[in-house]
């Protein structure tokens, strides 16, 4: 009886909680009617709810489609890129992202060379999968280390060494995930380049520029302005609508 109660509690706890789906459904209806702007507003409303990462990724993907239909190709790139951060193995999102980048005149996200392939392979694991992989790799290591401590022997020591190599491999995606990128990543969605100002004023001469499709980090914000740091370390202010937040 007690076991049945525990199993029941576990089952209830493990089931995803339903989300208030009205906003999402209304967005779908509007999208089917060709009202892209309306669909986007409903879906942004749905985005405010708490969602499982993969469901959030799907919603971001749908928002990217709405932006694409509106003709906002760079914005669509931003939505798809944000979606892939949550669900990096979703093939439809990759296809739409590459199509949008090509239409926007940007280089492919996956150029197909060795570096891009490795990067995509490493980043194809979701955060939880990265952590699970490390923990799974630690199990045989712990087992063989315990055996080595209790019984000794060269065979066990070698097995423990092999397990440690497996752990090292599993640590690669985990470590890259920990290092991550910018704390608040943004995507430049105004082309072909956005001028950087030293202060949030439009009348100052630009101190640099960031190209469309480039990822930058948000370090401050004021109404209508966002202060960013480029990959080259250059800091400056850009108009708020010129950048797109990739973490949503």
């Amino acid at each position, binding site marked *: 009886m007690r076991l049945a109660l525990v199993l029941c509690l576990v089952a209830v706890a493990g089931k995803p909680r339903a*989300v208030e789906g009205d906003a999402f459904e209304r967005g779908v209806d509007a999208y089917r009617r060709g009202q892209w702007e309306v669909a986007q507003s409903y879906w942004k409303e749905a985005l405010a709810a708490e969602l*499982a990462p993969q469901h959030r990724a799907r919603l971001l993907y749908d928002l990217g489609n709405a932006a694409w239909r509106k003709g906002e190709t760079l914005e669509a790139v931003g939505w798809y890129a944000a979606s892939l951060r949550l669900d990096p193995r979703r093939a439809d999102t990759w296809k739409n992202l590459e199509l949008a980048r090509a239409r926007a005149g940007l280089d492919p996200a996956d150029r197909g060379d060795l570096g891009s392939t490795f990067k995509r392979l490493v980043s194809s694991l979701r955060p939880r999968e990265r952590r699970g992989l*490390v923990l799974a790799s630690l199990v045989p290591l712990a087992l063989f280390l315990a055996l080595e401590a*209790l*019984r000794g022997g060269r065979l066990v020591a070698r097995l423990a060494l092999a397990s440690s190599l497996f752990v090292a491999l599993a640590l690669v995606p*985990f470590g890259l995930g920990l290092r991550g990128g910018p704390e608040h990543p943004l995507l430049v969605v105004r082309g072909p380049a956005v001028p950087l100002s030293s202060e949030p004023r439009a009348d100052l001469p630009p101190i640099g520029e960031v190209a469309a499709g480039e990822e930058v980090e948000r370090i401050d914000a004021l109404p209508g302005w966002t202060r960013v740091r480029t990959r080259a370390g250059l800091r400056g202010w850009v108009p708020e609508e010129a950048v797109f937040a990739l973490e949503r």
Partner: protein
Amino acid sequence: MRNPTRLFVCALALLAWPAHPLRAQRSGEPKVSAQLSTGVARLGERVLLTIAVENAREVRITRMPEVPGLAFGDPSGPSSYQSTQILNGRRYDSFQINWRLPIRPSQEGEFSIPPIGLDVDGRALETRPLRLRVVVDLRGADLGFLCIRPSSAKVVEGEPFTLELRFGWDASTSINYADLSLPWWGALPGLVELDTGDLPSGAQRVEGVRINGESGLVVEQVESAPGEENFQVFRLVRSFLPSRPGPVEFPESFLEFAKIRENFFDTRKVASYFVRAEPFTLEVVPLPLEGQPLDYSGAVGTLAVHASADVRDVGVGESIKFTVEWTGQGNLEFFQAPDPKRIDSFHSFRVFGSTEEKRFELRRVVYDLAPLDESVREIPALPLSVFDPEQGVYRTLATDAIPIRVRPLERSATLGEDAGAKSFASDIEDIDARPLAGPSAGEDAFPGDYAVLASLVSVPLGWILLRGAVRARRGDPGAPLERRRRRARLSLTRALSRSTEPRAVLDAFTDYLAARAKDPPQAWAGRDVETWAAARGAGSAPASQAAREAARDVARVVRRLEAAVFGGGPLVPREEVLAAAERWEETTR
């Protein structure tokens, strides 16, 4: 060439003669040749040595030969010979400078005249060495013959001709030596030798005939013609192509035939005979300018043409190998083959290129064509302008048109501008309209990054602690004595399964006890187990009691095993030994 200076100015041609291959003969490198008026001379007879230099302006003799027995006179000349032509709007000049050097032999014998040094436009050149045979008397005219006949006494520039040498001697004589003395051999300015002298298949080959004293010549033995019934007859044929207009002189030639007797010490001619061939001149006339077509490509001769195609049914753009073969008597190797790209009737074809095969008797060109339109019905006739020396006129030699069928391009509508073309756009994948769900309880909460990092630290840390504790308590588990102790019972079981001999069982059990105590086996020979166990006697009272009982069991088994080995006692069952070991192991763990 009797006058000291002779100037030939050939007529000017304003009509095109595109890329005539013989032009290279006119404006090429300087060429030096030397020729004797005869290869065999009577003693005291005057012989002329002619030195000819082509394609050079400034020439002088730098070194005169000195041959004992031959007296060289002063050279006469130089005389010059000039030929000028304007072809395709360009002027081509050729020059030839001649010297004549008189030679008077003062003694009988065979003489070799060394090369004569020349300074030709600043370059040092020399003639080839020459050979002159001087005899007291030329006899044998009635015992042999030598006849040299050109195929025509007058040829057109570029028209090939053959030279037939027919010679022989009385069949009743046992002649075994023959030498053709041909002063013009290999020294005919303005002529290009065409073939290599290969005999036709089936010809009766005769080797050993020498030419200008050199062996290696192969001639053909032929049937005697009327008037030659009593002779062995031989034939030698060579083909030439005149590369410039003007006379070509062939000085007198000789055939020496002899009977040679050879023995171990010596080789000598028993009888030697000479027959003579008259000198003659071949006249090379220039190509007539009247009626020369604009597309004339230099073909001269009596030619025939045949054309074929590898496929007759093709699609638009597919390749056709169009093969054209010209045969006959003419300068087949030298004319420029027609280019279909320049022929209007081939405008419905794309010409990818051509490959050529040039032989003395055949010229083959394979054109790679592709029809551009399905309306093409035939490969048109391919014309070639040829000068016919027999008729003395230019005529057009054309292939027969080859009918073909050209299929339209498959799915050609896709190439049209507006022929119902289908084009497909690239578009994004559709939205994902499945219902959304919130996160599961605890989803993504565990394992967190810190849990992973803690695990990464705790696993090696736990190993270090456990390892230290185990070693502090029991020593190194990987040490040989410890591993032997752990394997002691397994070793005992295996030993008992291998043999039931009392001695082997006793040794195995002793080894087991030694391994468990980490002692050497010898230490347990004759040891009192109970006393040893009591001496170790640590532990609580119940444990000591059990240990004492186990020690008693082990001591009893040892005694029975020793009785079986040394006193002929009964065998101890295997199970009993293993049971004692098990109890012993439980109490001495």
